[in-house]
């Protein structure tokens, strides 16, 4: 029952106001590419996505008033994701590595651009 008491204690923020902020941020995401600058697009697309996700997690999922181990659990999974990325990205993104190569990527820029793995040697 302690969990119920904990849940009932918190005060609800103005959810409509948070939704309005999220909609404004969505408009920023959509407007970003119209400036034609890659950096601006990256910031308005992915930077804003991060802010939107934070607002939803904090205000709608109430992760900030949840037991401490819940955000730690979420952060742990995000770290696992980064570890996976760091481990797998070189194999996906590079033409060659220790004792392996992608001959078609080295000989054909088109195959490299398309991501074709034909003829890859272990």
């Amino acid at each position: 029952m302690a969990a119920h008491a904990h849940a009932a204690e918190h005060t609800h923020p103005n959810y409509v106001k948070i939704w309005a902020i999220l909609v404004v941020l969505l408009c920023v995401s959509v407007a970003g590419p119209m400036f034609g600058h890659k950096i601006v697009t990256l910031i308005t697309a992915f930077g804003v996505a991060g802010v939107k996700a934070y607002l939803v997690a904090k205000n709608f999922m109430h992760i900030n008033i949840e037991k401490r181990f819940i955000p730690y659990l979420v952060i742990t999974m995000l770290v696992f994701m980064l570890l996976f990325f760091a481990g797998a990205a070189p194999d996906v993104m590079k033409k060659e590595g220790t004792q392996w190569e992608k001959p078609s990527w080295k000989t054909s820029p088109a195959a490299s651009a398309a991501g074709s793995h034909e003829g890859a040697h272990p």
Partner: protein
Amino acid sequence: MSARPIATTRTTAGLATGKLAVWWVIVSEIVIFGGLLGSYIMHRLAHDSFSAQAAHTNMWIGAFNTLVLLSSSLSAVLAHQAAEAGDGRKAARLIWATIAGAFTFLTVKGFEWTSEIHHGFTITSSTFWSFYYTAAGLHALHVLAGAIIMMFVASSAAKNLELHRVELIGIYWHFVDVVWIFLFPLLYIAK
């Protein structure tokens, strides 16, 4: 002896078992979607052809569906607030509004995919389209699952029963929203 379900009364980790289970599902889903999106990002960075293929997705459709999901998240959290106040009927109405958002999202997705397939962009067209249909399809399955579960939650909430479930399905629904918040720029904006 109490007849209340253990999901609301038993706690082994400081929060109700039902809520712990929902968070466990969510952190598992982070790895599933995270792995998929991480793989997409590394391919996107490595292959220039992804940019040309991504140019065929319709940003306005993606933006509309983002608005639909953000709005459905609002109704889901307002349902949670109503459930906490003990107003099951209001919570049920708001959950039905969330379900309407889910089906709007799926309908728009259906029209979008039909158009893309008619233009020759299928799951086997290229690596980009394989990722596109897999990521968006997996997400759409989560939307459908959430909508079906919400129907059960709404029917019991309307009778003022099992109101704790309103918060639990809400947490799941917001997670589905967060996944789309990242899918939208990846598939529709970064071209």
